[in-house]
């Protein structure tokens, strides 16, 4: 789509109406995963491994089955064999086969007539384990003599002779890195580590599954993507996808963690064995933390060369990440994103995807990018300090612009990095005076954004209102943004458009609400569906007026003659056309399905002021600024909300959050008291600036805003702590203990 096709004058886009689902959500009426129940429903409970790595010698379910009210028990023996690739991984993660691979790995499940009974029955299932040596840390897991998690899990990319838990290897780059380092005035190389964190959505996973002996089923579930649930459950259970109908509930947060399956196939398998009675499974918080999909942890080497005026001459990064006991750590994404803000001639990337005895990682908001940013943006800051350079000017000097080749290969289309950095410079926060023990940090971040399989329908009601059916669950206001775009195009009131998130039976396959795609992809498809309906309305009006279809235009909610030559007719409004549609050819609707092209990448930069208590080492956030290119903010309040929420999660990751394992390989902090996410009293107001460099690939310029915002906080806070204390923490989280010992060491 050419640039001049992006509209810039709007009636509704950029306004802030109340979200259509707001009333349901402030009154407690909105139905989330655990709120759904069915007549005759059973409750399921899952038996989980207490060991990080253990051979399953025997499972005895007889005592559980003997309990009155227990209707079915499943183990791996109830699932089909012969799966391969990711299907096998999903099945193995759903329910352990020969070995339990992490603390919390499901080994059996039971359904009974009450929650308490199901829990009691789960306790009566006896599992005999042979405990095996385990490995948790990524740098330990990559050692040649580490406990082997699974032979044969490596793909063809892994060089011969690699350590046994390395399952994917990647290497790419361009130019002459050594020559680049030789041309630098300063070369620095450091290692950075991040710990695994959890998305921390407040709603635990919940589903009701129902499946008969004919393998036809239904599921009601909280998910970011119900077609993924359908496809994955079908694969794991060996049933046909189309025979499973999946309806999404409202979703209580996901952040990537609800784009895959965990206990959902268990509820279906239990239901089938219980004669088709529906089975509800609701995870506890401990189950969520132990056995869903936290993010990977990383160990990352970065080497940069810089001239004394700040030009980056070469970059070499080598990242090792563990994503649990399966392939899939987002090391590739981390490598692609980590240097994306810099125009580089000489660059080398190396990545290792490593298995460890931890839960199978899932996506977490810009998967991989925050870790990569932590490593690279920390080192850029260290070098700016060494060379006494302004961190924003240095980033501007090296910034990628439209037409530049990205560090990871492709050529950038329209991007807004320079605009973002300029906006940071202009913002009062960047000049605000700092108090004692305070320091300022800045960092940039990047996310590709994503299109994905998208299928959307819309139709006109006989009173001239419109309904839109989308397949992307509304996590943060996408009903509002899509209604705004459709109303804008149709020329009707925002309130006259209803956006429904519909079940799998109602549309073609949709990818989840992930990759910052809902407002971009479902939004674009909704606009294109609307165009189709408009075309049909113009056709009918043309027939009525007896003129050519091309001679009818659509604007302000009505059909108009295209010009003086088209003839003189009063505009025919949507209401009139809709009222008569029964006699002019029947229903008027539009549909669009595609992998919407024209994805627009997004850059952001954050400025954070911290204060570090010199006695305790505790870091507090004093001031926080998010600047990010939205392309276009359809509903600015929800764009700001994404920026603020991403920043808050990043702050938690930087300062508090980590998976803590004991020497026995068990997760030590599977409750919110110990896995401490930021609370209201931890944070200040989070200032935002929405930069709008419209994406030419979207009719209204949308890029997608969900993910970039979690990327800069990790390094920005580490940089600010350095500024405040003179000490550099290269291993997240930046706990008071670490800061205090670093300050003590520096004082010596």
């Amino acid at each position: 789509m050419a640039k001049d096709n992006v509209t810039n004058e709007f009636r509704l886009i950029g306004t802030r109406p109340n979200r259509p689902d707001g009333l349901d959500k402030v009154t407690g009426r909105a139905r989330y995963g655990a709120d759904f129940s069915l007549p005759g429903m059973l409750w399921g409970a899952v038996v989980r491994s207490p060991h990080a790595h253990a051979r399953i010698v025997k499972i005895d379910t007889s005592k559980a089955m003997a309990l009155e009210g227990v209707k079915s028990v499943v183990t791996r023996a109830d699932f089909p064999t012969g799966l391969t690739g990711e299907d096998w991984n999903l099945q193995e993660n759903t329910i352990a086969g020969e070995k339990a691979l992490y603390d919390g790995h499901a080994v059996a499940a039971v359904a009974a007539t009450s929650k308490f009974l199901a829990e009691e029955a789960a306790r009566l299932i006896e599992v005999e384990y042979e405990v095996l040596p385990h490995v948790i840390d990524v740098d330990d897991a990559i050692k040649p003599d580490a406990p082997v998690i699974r032979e044969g899990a490596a793909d063809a990319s892994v060089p011969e002779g690699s350590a046994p838990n390395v399952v994917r290897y990647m290497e790419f780059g361009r130019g002459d890195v050594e020559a680049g380092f030789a041309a630098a005035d300063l070369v620095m190389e450091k290692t950075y580590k991040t710990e695994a964190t959890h998305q921390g959505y407040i709603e635990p996973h919940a589903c009701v599954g129902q499946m008969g002996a004919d393998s036809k089923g239904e599921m009601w579930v909280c998910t970011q993507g119900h077609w993924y649930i359908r496809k994955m459950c079908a694969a794991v259970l060996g049933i046909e996808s189309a025979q499973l109908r999946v309806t999404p509930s409202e979703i209580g947060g996901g952040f990537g963690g609800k784009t895959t399956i965990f206990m959902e196939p268990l509820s279906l398998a239990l239901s089938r064995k219980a004669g088709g009675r529906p089975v509800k499974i609701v995870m506890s918080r401990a189950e969520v933390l132990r056995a869903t999909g936290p993010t990977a942890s990383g160990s990352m080497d970065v080497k940069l060369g810089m001239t004394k005026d700040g030009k980056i001459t070469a970059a070499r990064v080598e990242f090792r990440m563990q994503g649990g006991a399966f392939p899939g750590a987002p090391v590739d994404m981390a490598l692609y994103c980590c240097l994306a803000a810099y125009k580089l001639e000489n660059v080398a990337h190396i990545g290792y995807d490593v298995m460890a005895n931890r839960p199978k990682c899932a996506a977490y908001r810009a998967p991989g990018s925050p870790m990569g940013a932590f490593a690279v943006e920390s080192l850029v800051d260290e070098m700016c300090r060494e060379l006494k350079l302004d961190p924003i000017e240095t980033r501007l000097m090296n910034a990628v612009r439209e037409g530049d080749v990205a560090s990871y290969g492709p050529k950038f289309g329209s991007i807004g990095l320079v605009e973002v950095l300029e906006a940071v410079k202009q913002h009062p926060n960047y000049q605000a005076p700092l108090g004692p023990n305070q320091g300022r940090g800045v960092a940039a971040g990047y996310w590709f954004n994503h299109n994905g399989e998208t299928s959307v329908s819309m139709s006109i009601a006989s009173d001239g209102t419109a309904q839109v059916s989308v397949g992307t669950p509304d996590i943060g206001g996408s009903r509002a943004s899509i209604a705004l775009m459709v109303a804008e195009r149709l020329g009707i009131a925002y309130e006259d458009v209803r956006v429904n998130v519909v079940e799998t039976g109602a549309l073609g396959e949709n990818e989840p609400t992930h990759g910052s795609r809902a407002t971009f992809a479902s939004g674009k498809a909704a606009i294109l569906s609307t165009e189709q309906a408009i075309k049909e309305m113009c056709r009918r009006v043309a027939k009525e007026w007896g003129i050519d279809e091309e001679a009818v235009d659509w604007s302000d909610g009505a059909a108009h003659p295209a010009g003086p030559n088209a003839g003189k007719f009063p505009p025919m409004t949507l209401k009139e056309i809709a009222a008569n549609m029964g006699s002019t050819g029947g229903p008027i609707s539009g549909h669009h399905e595609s992998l919407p092209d024209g994805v627009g990448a997004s850059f952001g930069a954050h400025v954070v002021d911290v204060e570090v208590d010199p006695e305790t080492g505790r870091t507090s956030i004093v001031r926080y600024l998010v600047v990010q290119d939205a392309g276009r903010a359809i509903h600015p309040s929800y764009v700001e909300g994404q920026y603020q929420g991403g920043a808050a999660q990043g702050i938690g990751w930087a300062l508090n959050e980590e998976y803590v394992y004991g020497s026995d390989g068990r997760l030590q902090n599977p409750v919110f008291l110990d896995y401490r996410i930021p609370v209201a009293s931890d944070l200040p107001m989070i200032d935002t600036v929405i930069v709008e460099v419209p994406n030419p690939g979207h009719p209204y310029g949308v890029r997608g805003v969900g993910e970039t915002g979690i990327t800069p906080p990790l390094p920005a806070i580490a940089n600010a702590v350095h500024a405040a204390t003179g000490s550099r923490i290269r291993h997240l989280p930046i706990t008071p203990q670490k800061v205090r010992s670093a300050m003590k060491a520096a004082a010596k």
Partner: protein
Amino acid sequence: MSKIHVTTKINGDEVEFLADPRETLLDCLRDHVGLTGTKEGCGTGDCGACSVELDGTLVCSCLVLGAEANGKSVNTIEGMAKGEELHPLQRKFIEHAALQCGFCTPGILVAAKSLLEKNPNPTEEEARFWLAGNLCRCTGYDKIIRAVLDAAAEMRETA
């Protein structure tokens, strides 16, 4: 296990249910009374999604047994609006876009209402500390705090 007959007043209505002695008030509200607006986020009193008022005191309903509600009154999110008229906090939450996924919203609204009944003019800091027991993972709390302070201001004006 034999059940306990519980008589309570929920959102002003007399309600009876049979509680398993092990059941929390949260489970009873959700599974026996059919009031699913109160949410479970942790079951350990850390997240505040299950906040209700028990005889006027703000509690985590996951830390109270259902049987303890006998003879007491319980106020939940479902009782916050009066018919079609939303409580100012509910209205301000929508206006300020103070919810994204909306899952923590019922608990935060109940907790914020309790704050404003005790302190009609809280500072930002007081609001932040009062709500520190209510986790929100989506918003970074910015718009929530603004909505609470704005609702407080409006309620003071109309009081």
